[in-house]
């Protein structure tokens, strides 16, 4: 009985993931970093990492989950949580509906329970295809509900960030999600539970200045842009060109804001190890 449901869940996630894993280009696809050409098949089989230069394409939420979770363990949390238009912003409902049609997502965050290497956990993923993964009230609420669910069930929490920052159309309510998610993490942390933050390309603005920076362990994918202000704004402000590699994952590593830069192909194993290392019990 259980295995039947597990199989069905595995199939469901696989179907959603196939929809997510869209690589531009026809049979061949050009890498935006090295401009080398690869077959779409080679890119897709390599977790959307360029076989030539190691560039990491941004990937969708469900696909991300399918690369991390044990097969059949995925159970989505608050799947139907509604997107909203709290400020009655002109044209926003239409734009939301268009993003929903295009991505098959209801909002920019997907949250789920599942297991990694047999260890149960709660995983949240921001999807940069939906309004650049920006922080809406619904995103803040889904992330907060995931933090609370993990806290209540004493499960480790893993959040994958990818965000252009605030959701402009939700204005001040977008800003308040930074306080809400950070406060929820304070309570979560007080329970002695593990939170791993994984920074992916790009993680900026209000997400960087809230939950993404608050992990007990912070990992980043190679080359990911990570910062508070975007490079364009900084360049305009200081009027100089920015140094090579500025705000990239490796820069954040050398400046002390990331524990490790982990290629996508090694993330699952790294997360599994970290979950194991933080398990309670046993004695010396």
């Amino acid at each position, binding site marked *: 009985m259980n295995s039947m449901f597990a199989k069905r869940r595995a199939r469901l996630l696989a179907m959603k993931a196939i929809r997510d894993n869209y690589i531009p280009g026809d049979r061949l696809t050009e890498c935006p970093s090295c401009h080398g050409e690869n077959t779409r098949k080679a890119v897709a089989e390599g977790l959307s990492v360029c076989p030539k230069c190691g560039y990491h394409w941004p990937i969708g939420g469900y696909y991300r989950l399918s690369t991390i979770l044990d097969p059949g363990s995925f159970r989505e949390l608050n799947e139907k949580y509604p997107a*909203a238009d709290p400020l009655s912003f002109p044209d926003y409902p239409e734009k939301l509906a268009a993003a929903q049609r295009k991505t098959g997502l209801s909002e920019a965050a997907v949250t789920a329970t599942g297991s990694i290497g047999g260890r149960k956990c709660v995983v949240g993923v921001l999807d940069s295809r939906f309004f650049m993964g920006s922080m809406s009230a619904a995103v803040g609420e889904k992330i907060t509900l995931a933090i609370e669910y993990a806290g209540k069930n004493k499960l480790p929490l893993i959040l994958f960030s990818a965000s252009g920052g605030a959701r402009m159309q939700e204005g001040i309510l977008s800003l308040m999600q930074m306080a809400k998610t950070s406060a929820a993490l304070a309570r979560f942390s007080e329970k002695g539970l593990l939170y791993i933050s994984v920074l992916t390309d790009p993680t900026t603005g209000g997400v960087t200045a809230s939950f993404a920076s608050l992990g007990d362990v912070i990992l980043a994918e190679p080359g990911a842009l990570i910062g508070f202000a975007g490079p364009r704004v900084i360049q305009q402000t200081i009027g100089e060109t920015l140094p090579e590699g500025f705000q990239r994952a490796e820069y954040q590593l050398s400046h002390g804001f990331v524990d490790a830069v982990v290629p996508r192909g090694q993330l699952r194993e790294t997360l599994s190890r970290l979950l194991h290392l933080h398990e309670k019990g046993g004695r010396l």
Partner: protein
Amino acid sequence: MSALTAAERVAMARHPQRPNITDYIDGLFTDFFEQKGDRLCGEDEAILGGVALYHGQSVTVIGTRKGKTLEENLRCNFGMPNPEGYRKALRLMRQAEKFRRPVLTFIDTAGAYPGLEAEAHGQGEAIARNLLEMSRLTVPVVAVITGEGNSGGALALGVANRILMQENAVYAILSPEGFASILWKDAARSAEASELMRLTAPELLRLGIIDDIIPEPEGGAHCDAAQAIREVDRALRRHLSSLCKESGAALAEDRYQKFRKMGVAAPGKEAL
């Protein structure tokens, strides 16, 4: 006054003669002792903080500082803090917790500074840490927005039990110019952005983001600074005295629930 447009309020919130943090410190407190430095690597003059007496009670005062003369503006980076400023603020808030005194913050900033060093020193981490730590303080926290409160740079001093706003202050995700430039690639449409952003005190009160509006003298706070300060005093005293009756645990819980409710979809609301 109520006939002011949002864009006019933005201009008034930025008025160079508007009373600033040093005016409020001089007018509201006695025996202010300034405390400098983040104890890690630097001192950021864009944030001013210390301990003072407020009607005889010890309080920790923290605020953003723009400066009044050009020389001051430059020293204070026009009120745009670096991570060192936020970390100094956090240090002072932890002291407030230790010595069981209320925290009063005064917010007037165009936002956290988008600079190279600010990024190298972890602007995002510094703001995030303040949000987390402020949420669980067990002393009363009152924030007063006295000018413009923009972005995470303002919120990093704004996780309070009570958020008060002067009548012509504004509070927003970023400046209307930045908003227009991101959304429409045209910073010149800032007046239009101001109207849509709901950044005025009456709109924010309606949205449940702030708790009270502090009246300003006729023509705005810059027309009669002494009167503006008296009004801030009246509101601050009222809110602080009610908070001081609460237990530490109740204050932290109250602050948590206040932010927990923000942006929750109405029950039964259909998905868009």
